[in-house]
């Protein structure tokens, strides 16, 4: 419950405070969003599986975002930024889909 509230509060802050995104951060924002989505779905699934652990959640979220951003940064420096972003999005996207399917099975038993 408090998790949902925190998420909603964060979205509200992001929408209403309207911080300007610095230009150098631009390419990493979508990747960070995908990584955050992956962490959120993973956490939700773990919660439903009754194996949720706060430390794992927080650390995996932070590490995923940082690693994803770093991979994209490295790709930008090497000139393969677009391809590496695609790789990150594909890997995280598969995981998001898998976790969403597990959550769906939990909720709808189907």
């Amino acid at each position, binding site marked *: 419950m408090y998790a949902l509230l925190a998420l909603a509060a964060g979205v509200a802050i992001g929408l209403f405070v309207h911080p300007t995104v610095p230009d150098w951060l631009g390419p990493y924002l979508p990747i960070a969003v995908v990584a955050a989505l992956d962490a959120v779905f993973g956490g939700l699934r773990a919660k439903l599986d*009754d194996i949720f652990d706060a430390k794992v959640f927080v650390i995996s979220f932070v590490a995923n975002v940082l690693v994803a951003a770093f991979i994209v940064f490295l790709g930008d420096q090497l000139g393969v930024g677009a391809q590496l972003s695609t790789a990150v999005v594909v890997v995280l996207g598969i995981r998001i889909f898998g976790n969403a399917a597990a959550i769906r099975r939990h909720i709808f038993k189907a």
Partner: protein
Amino acid sequence: MRPVGDHGPSGPVQQQPTVRRNPVPSLLESLGRDHLDPGYAEAARRKANGGAAAPGPGSSRAWSVAAVAAALVVVGVLFGVSASSAEENAPRAEKTRSALLEDIDRAEQQESVLATSIADLAEQLRATQSALGVAGPLETVAALELAGQITPVTGPGLRIVLDEAPKDDENASTSGVILDRDIQLLVNDLWAAGAEGIAIGGVRVQPRSAIRQAGGSILVDNRPVFWPLTIEAVGDPSGMQVKLIGSAGYGRFSTFAQLYGIEFDVSAQETLNLPGGTGADLLFASAPPTS
């Protein structure tokens, strides 16, 4: 995962334990199977083994609630910021595009205004010169300018309207396209048929004019002209028409009209008003010094 050729424990008896050559599942396989971070399972196992959670700041309930809430606030801010920035960016790109289009429009308008003012000023200049009575050489100049297709002319002639085939057919977009070389051929045939001045889409064709293609549009003298294209040629309408009908360009376009359905209309006109050309810009050539 068992490597190919590994007989496993049920195979022939071996002394050493079965060697697993590929203990880690391949990356793609694990991608398809392990959607959840393995850390969760490990933490759960640790908890189950140790009974109470390991000591440390992560163990107390308040700490974990605060950490998860903070992380989720960060996630939410991330979502919100990216949503608002995505919202901002889409109209910005659209705005830039339309601003550029407006700039192009404005520049084109300015160009045509300037071109008219050039023609006006040249007219004034000629009028003033003839009023001053320097007629002899100036008449030569005027005749040369007329021959060089610089001065506006009016007179009877032919009007040809060209348009590409309608695009809504199933046939590919390339089949109904009129190319620059077709128009070049037609214009050359018009000159050969006795045209004294030609304008394409309101742009006067000069001795050094080029009819070129850039993408889907036709450039006459580096100025874009638009479909449907009107070619106006001043000359003897009936004589020109007779000669034109026997020419290769006319034959090509009438074939196009029959085969591909392009628009190709030739009509005689009582009066055609052709604009003046802009004259040639000489960059390197100059008149030899008269001694």
